[in-house]
């Protein structure tokens, strides 16, 4: 029998500010759509980030992925760039994209899919404990 397919999820956090605003719309229209989140100077969240990888369990180590490798990857590709930053201004992902929870989930997926490849299965971004964004939808 081939190795069991196991999903492993690891939870991280980062703190960042953002502003929901697009230059493609008028100030009034931005305020109508984004409300308080369009405030010019932005605001912040403690984001939760859960990353799920899946793959065969290695015979020798019993790992789907060495945890240190996953932690290093998420830190290098996402947390170092996002943590304690103003996403709109400091992170190129959002220079022309509104940093909503939806877009953050997609951009984090894109960043992690480079090093993790087919192993990457799911990204969950918690903006607050009430708002959660999963990508992709299965």
């Amino acid at each position, binding site marked *: 029998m*081939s190795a*069991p*397919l196991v*999903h492993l999820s690891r939870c991280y956090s980062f703190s960042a500010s953002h502003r929901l605003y697009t230059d493609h719309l008028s100030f009034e229209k931005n305020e109508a759509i984004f409300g308080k989140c369009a405030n010019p100077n932005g605001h912040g969240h403690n984001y939760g980030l859960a990353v*799920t990888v899946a793959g065969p*369990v290695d015979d020798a180590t019993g790992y789907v992925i060495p945890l240190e490798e996953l932690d290093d990857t998420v830190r290098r590709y996402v947390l170092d760039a996002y943590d304690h930053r103003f996403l709109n201004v400091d992170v190129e992902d959002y220079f022309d994209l509104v940093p909503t929870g939806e877009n953050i989930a997609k951009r984090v997926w894109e960043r992690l899919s480079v090093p993790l490849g087919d192993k990457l299965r799911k990204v969950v971004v918690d903006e607050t404990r009430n708002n959660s964004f999963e990508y992709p939808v299965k």
Partner: protein
Amino acid sequence: MGGVTISRRFDFSSSHRYYREEWSEEENTRVFGLCALPNGHGHNYTLEVAVAGDPDAETGMVINLVDLKSAVNGVLEQFDHKHLNLDTPYFSDRIPTTENLATVLWELIAEALGRVPLHRIRLYETDDLFVEYYGEAA
């Protein structure tokens, strides 16, 4: 009516050590880090067991929770307050990682449940690390 998944949470506490006898001390430490320390260490594990099916027309249940609790608690007796490497027979030839423990628990719980189809087990080693197994092969 479509199928429904019911999930029940269980807690158990165990110790373990990650170590391969055929590897050198240095190789074990390189791969397993602190988890290779000679005397082992422990976790409070949380296990979520999900079964799926159509609710019974008479009882409205997918499975009687009393039966689910009895089956899973019977399995967990072998693991709770035990050293996984030394006190259970399942890790003589594999490392008691969360991944491997999940597949072992799947086999034992599926057997204990008999005809009731096990859907998923989710095993938390800590709050920020968990694995999921659906009985699939890679």
